[in-house]
């Protein structure tokens, strides 16, 4: 411990309550017990079931042949367009052949009788959903899962120890593990319990491409079996990532495909997997937050599958006990987001149209490696905040898995699906439930979000600058030369203290969490915050100048980090 304490005093403050970061035993002994393994072992049957059920669902949605054919035509047209314009390495080799066959089959429908048309349209649909189901399905391999896991652990450990313990041979020591670098806080014990009692659907915030790897590690580190995970197909383009993804139980979500058969098949895959008890993970924000804001609007498609799966379980098992589905919100809290400059450029570009002209400044792959190295060797910790479990209607869950209402009464989730004493299927009702659940998750995100000193420093600094130029809109503000911006330290400190007090109040009311390092001497906390916000960017969002005042090298990126704390009414303290 001594060698480490001497290494960097600032790390001491960053380091959260260490005892909390203990190692958890796996809740299931062997991989063969894992639901995700069961799914992949019976992959062929499962894919067929997905295809069959998706087919039935689409037939329900498009009851007559004419409607169905018009959707199939649109699908074929868009798919051929995609192949022409936007081809990816992961796309199957026979893509263009398959779709031109489909197109020909659709053309031939014109010369058939009404009965024949209906039958052939069905068979075309069957081919399409079968293909999609196969494309989507994950390929969990226990052996490569184990290898991947050990690989990640080994190299991360080497990096950590090599860098931190400055002694010969430190490279091969095990004094530090990832758990010192990434803190898992919140309801871990509950999460483990819920994973034993029911099926967990984990819904984290999404800021960085590293999130999926990070969450994979968190799940393993909490002793949970691998989750199935809807990963963007674009990630599979990168070979090394594809290897990781495949071994972690990922299934593929292709955002280029917006057609009805694809979307229904995708939802059915998730729905059935959840029904079969596979713990699932998806980022309900859809893509990474471009603005740095905590997600306000969630994508409802995959979320609705959790509700549908729960209803189906009740429907199929009217009398007996039913495996419950638990929604667990998670926030990932960083001092630094590698892609921040690109993300915020995207955001401003979309928001401002021609008001804003982004500079071209792309990042190479060396950046990623440099980042990883810096991350493990310098003081920028990550914390993962696990929220209280919710049922599919957004009610809190107690330790035993019961849904609890505002008055602390135990309620039966099944009752939400009951009309006139029976569990019923009502698509519109469930759409509405999905919307309600998404609002609930957003609220939980804000509650479990963990405020770092760097977040608060970024928020206060940006808001102060904004207040100094009340006449400027955001875009004009961002065009002010950075050299003209300077905040008097004393003034900054007073404002920072006011905002920090407000954070304490919010925390006391249960409306946010904050890192322990936020407390204590304000000078030290501010120093920590300023030095850590966007720590590895070439142009630092916050710095001290020689006079000890606060300056910025990149106001746009500062704006990104500032956004993290928007929505807490902190601006009234500025």
């Amino acid at each position, binding site marked *: 411990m001594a060698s480490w304490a001497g290494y960097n005093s600032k790390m001491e403050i960053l380091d959260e309550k260490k005892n909390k970061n203990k190692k958890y035993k796996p809740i299931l002994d062997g991989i063969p017990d894992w639901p995700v393994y069961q799914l992949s072992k019976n992959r062929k049957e499962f894919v067929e079931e997905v295809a069959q059920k998706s087919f039935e669902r689409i037939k329900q949605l498009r009851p007559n042949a004419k409607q169905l054919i018009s959707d199939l035509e649109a699908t074929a047209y868009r798919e051929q367009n995609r192949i022409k314009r936007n081809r990816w390495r992961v796309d199957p080799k026979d893509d263009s052949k398959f779709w031109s066959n489909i197109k020909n089959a659709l053309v031939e429908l014109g010369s058939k009788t009404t009965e024949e048309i209906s039958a052939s349209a069905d068979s075309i649909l069957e081919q399409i959903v079968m293909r999609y189901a196969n494309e989507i399905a994950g390929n969990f391999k226990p052996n490569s899962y184990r290898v991947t896991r050990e690989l990640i652990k080994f190299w991360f450990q080497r990096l950590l120890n090599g860098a931190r313990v400055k002694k010969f041979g430190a490279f091969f020591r095990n004094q530090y593990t990832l758990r010192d670098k990434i803190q898992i806080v919140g309801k871990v014990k509950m999460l483990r319990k819920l994973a034993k009692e029911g099926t967990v659907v984990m819904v984290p915030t999404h800021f960085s491409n590293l999130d999926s790897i990070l969450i994979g590690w968190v799940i393993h580190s909490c002793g949970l079996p691998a989750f199935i995970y809807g990963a963007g197909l674009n990630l599979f383009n990168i070979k090394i990532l594809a290897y990781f993804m495949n071994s972690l139980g990922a299934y593929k979500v292709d955002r280029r495909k917006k057609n009805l058969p694809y979307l229904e098949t995708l939802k059915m895959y998730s729905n059935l997997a959840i029904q079969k008890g596979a713990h699932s993970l998806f980022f309900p924000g859809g893509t990474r937050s471009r603005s740095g804001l905590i997600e306000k609007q969630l994508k409802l498609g995959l979320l609705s599958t959790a509700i549908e799966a729960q209803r189906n379980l009740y429907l199929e098992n009217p009398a007996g006990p039913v495996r419950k589905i638990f929604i667990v919100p998670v926030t990932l809290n960083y001092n630094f987001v590698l892609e921040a400059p690109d993300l915020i450029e995207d955001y401003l570009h979309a928001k401002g149209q021609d008001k804003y002209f982004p500079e071209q400044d792309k990042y190479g792959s060396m950046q990623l490696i440099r980042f990883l190295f810096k991350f493990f060797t310098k003081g920028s910790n990550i914390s993962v905040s696990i929220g209280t479990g919710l049922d599919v209607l957004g009610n809190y869950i107690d330790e035993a898995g019961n849904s609890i209402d505002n008055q602390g009464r135990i*309620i039966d989730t099944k009752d939400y699906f009951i009309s006139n*004493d029976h569990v019923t299927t009502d698509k519109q009702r469930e759409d509405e439930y999905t919307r309600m659940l998404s609002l609930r998750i957003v609220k939980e995100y804000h509650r479990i979000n963990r405020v770092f000193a760097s977040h608060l420093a970024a928020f206060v600094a940006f808001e102060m600058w904004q207040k100094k130029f009340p006449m400027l809109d955001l875009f004009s503000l961002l065009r002010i030369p950075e050299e003209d911006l300077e905040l008097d330290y004393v003034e900054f400190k007073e404002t920072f203290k006011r905002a920090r007090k407000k954070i304490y109040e919010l925390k006391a009311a249960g409306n946010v969490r904050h890192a322990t390092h936020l407390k204590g001497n304000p000078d030290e906390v501010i120093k920590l915050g300023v030095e850590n916000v966007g720590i590895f960017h070439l142009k630092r969002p916050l710095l001290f100048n020689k006079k000890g005042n606060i300056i910025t090298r990149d106001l746009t990126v500062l704006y990104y980090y500032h956004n993290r704390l928007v929505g807490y009414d902190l601006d009234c303290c500025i």
Partner: protein
Amino acid sequence: MTSTAASDKPVGVIGAGNFGTVIANILAINRKVILYARNEQMVADMHANRESKGYALHRNVEPTHNMAVLASQCDVIFPMVPSAHFRAMMKQLSQHLHPYHILIHGTKGFDITLPEGQTIESISKLTREHVKTMSEVIQEESVVVRVGCLAGPNLAKELAQRQPGATVVASHFNEVKQLGKKLLRNDRFQVYENDDIVGVEIAGVLKNIIAIASGALSGLGYGENAKGLLISRGAVEMVYLGRALGGDLKAFLGVAGIGDLVTTCNSPMSRNFTVGYRLAKGEKLANILADMSEIAEGINTVRIAKKCADHYKVRALITDRLYKVLFEGMTVEEALEFLMRYPLNVDIDFL
């Protein structure tokens, strides 16, 4: 959903005031109804005389004083109590409710929750955090999510006489709208659907402001031109305010918006109208209130709407002038003069 019609479970109504009694009677045409009243003596009287508020009770109506029984026998409940008591009623009812319950309320008014020691006037800003509609109160106080509301030009007296009329059932849930329709509709009562429950609720409250203004015009002795002007500009103001409070335009143009507004502005018997009428005759608010057994809902609505308009930066001229007349000693003539001189001449700018 078709099975719902076949069900013969009774329907609950909470609150045996004018509107509650009349709605219970309408529901009783199709179903058995359990009607709850808070006052035990009143229930006993209803049993003895088979009437409430001067209306004869339909033979299918069963009065009760027991909320638990009502909640256990009825899956569908219509709360019809004044907004001032609504939250307290829900706190009492919620312990008996389950997520399978469906609540369709018929209460027009806002629920106000302020930090301790504050009043509408003293609080620095009044926002939607403090001002809730009844459907929001239901969801805050209970586990019920399938919520709907009834609103429209529904004068209890005319409904009781089986004069032709209509109402809107608003809900986010098709299930609730269909059910409301099925239960309420008869050959003299038309039922329309709307998705925007909050908009419909807000429209039903805000129209009270315009009702006071309508009484005031009448008190000054003005005729139909003035009323036409008021109703149309009043509707525009309701749209502005309503949008700021989270409603959608469409709710304000329908039966629960324009429909209710026209009815209310033409009913000289209503309390809101009377307040305006007497103000215009030169009486002071305190005197008028002293004569009234129940407070006119519109007076509170003016206070709330004015404060909200300030916070959300909505131009609400009629509300603002009425506030000055009610609480700051401005005369009705002065208020009218201001409005007539106001240099704003765009008719409709929200479509």
